[in-house]
């Protein structure tokens, strides 16, 4: 019985694994064929004679370099702003006197479930008012709004559960608040910060609507927004997927190894 059950489990895992990875196999095959060959003839799951020209073209393409730079700026800018703002807020809420701190945290937390479909239309005006329309900065100022509410919640829960002596002792020794945060709390919060960063990366990677609504010039795109910028009609399938596989996939694959960290953060306050 037990052997049978394990066999069934293994078979199920294998089938689902193939389902999960199939689109990536297709993308790799597409990236190893010139132009739109992938959509016209040959085996769409395999490149019998791999053509690496898409990848070599990428390395000298000014547009690819621009998109890669934009992607990196959006990702790093979003994470820096989100983590910085959440750390400060969570520390103040957990270790300083804030009237109705709990209510504030919960109200903040409540906004993290708001569908971005509700916000994008008026947000176009916000982005224009800030003077960042049609620039990757439009995403840097808007994504943190989707990350900070959840990040503050996770960090607040973590800070609150720390022994109070940790902060009190440092205060008695005359350390300033910022120093306590950076030198005492951040080092112990690293796993939690990793979980929050993963949450932020998932938000940034899975957004389509904001990129579509705020960016239109070719120069302003990120590698992610550029793929389906107008529609699914790709100009150059091979080049497009090579750009994604070279510029974005390594980050996604790296993050995929931290699924448990992600789940632990997401389950804060729900799963003990």
């Amino acid at each position: 019985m037990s052997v049978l059950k394990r066999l069934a489990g293994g078979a199920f895992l294998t089938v689902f694994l193939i389902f999960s990875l199939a689109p990536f196999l297709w993308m790799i095959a597409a990236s190893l064929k010139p132009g739109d060959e992938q959509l016209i003839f040959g085996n769409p799951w395999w490149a019998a004679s791999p053509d690496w020209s898409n990848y070599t073209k990428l390395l000298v393409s000014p547009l690819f370099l621009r998109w890669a730079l934009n992607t990196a700026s959006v990702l790093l800018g979003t994470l820096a702003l989100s983590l910085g703002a959440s750390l400060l807020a969570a520390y103040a809420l957990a270790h300083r006197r804030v009237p109705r701190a709990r209510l504030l945290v919960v109200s903040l937390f409540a906004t993290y479930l708001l569908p971005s479909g509700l916000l994008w239309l008026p947000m176009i005006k916000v982005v224009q008012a800030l003077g960042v329309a049609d620039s990757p900065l439009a995403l840097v100022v808007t994504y943190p709004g989707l990350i900070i509410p959840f990040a503050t919640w996770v960090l607040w829960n973590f800070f609150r559960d720390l022994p109070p002596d940790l902060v009190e002792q440092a205060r008695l020794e005359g350390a300033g608040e910022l120093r306590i945060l950076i030198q005492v709390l951040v080092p112990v919060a690293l796993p939690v910060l990793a979980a929050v960063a993963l949450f932020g990366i998932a938000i940034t990677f899975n957004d389509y609507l904001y990129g579509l609504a705020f960016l239109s010039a070719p120069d302003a795109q990120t590698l992610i927004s550029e793929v389906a910028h107008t529609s699914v009609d790709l100009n150059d399938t091979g080049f497009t997927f090579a750009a994604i596989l070279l510029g974005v996939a390594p980050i996604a694959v790296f993050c995929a190894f931290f699924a448990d960290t992600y789940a632990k953060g997401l389950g804060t306050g729900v799963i003990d």
Partner: protein
Amino acid sequence: MTAVRGRLLTLAMLAPALAFVLGVIAYPLATALWFSLTSVQIGGAGHFVGLANYRFLFGLGTYGDAVRNTVVYTAGSTVLKALLGMLLAFALARPFPGRRLVYAALFLPFIFPADVGAVAWYYLFSNVHGGINYLIQRDVAWLGNGPLAMASLVTVNVWHGTALFTVLSLAALRSVPRHVLDAAITDGARWYQRFLRILLPYLVPGLVLAALLSVLGTFGDFVFVHLITGGGPANSTSIVGTMAFQVALIDGDLGLASAISFSVIPVYLVGLAYLLRLVGRR
């Protein structure tokens, strides 16, 4: 003096987070609500029309279709993801060679850019040299008729989102104390008794959280439907998110589009109430 300085410092520490939430969440939300009560168009200021947009909407056949499609899409995807995700969590619970690699591979679709996944799936479903038809050597129009197109969209949603249920179920399973399970086995509890009486109570919070995130995410989905079917054929997969987008950018009717987006707020509020109850235990 120091008390005032202390309070100012507290405020300064809260300020960046509050600025983001007020500026890019609260303000747009309030504006969207206001839009939905006006006749604002692209390139034209509107005036207050009360609930006229909502009244018009509720009498609109295409809106009724979109709501029905949204419910089918959300319910179908969420039930499948919950079942498959829970089964995967059980299959992954024991150590085996390569487990880390398999776990990462299963999580990858969730963290990979959704629009890239959507484009790839569009070409897998395509009936012109599409990946799936090539495999089965048939000529099926996967996106050609309503029910099949909806099933295709559910497939993509399941591909992308099952990992959420897997990782949260697995985290919940890990919270089951080993000795409780061992005691049940020595007491001769059957597998379904162990599942119902011992595992399920521990699993429920994780599953409910995943279900809430999945329902709200799928209800507000845009990327998969917009890119893969565009709501077609003949509006048969049009959902609330894609309808709002089309009314806003193609018809230019921002008031009506905002009303469409805002009409799902009850779903959000119910989800939120559940979530707050879930975390209220702390």
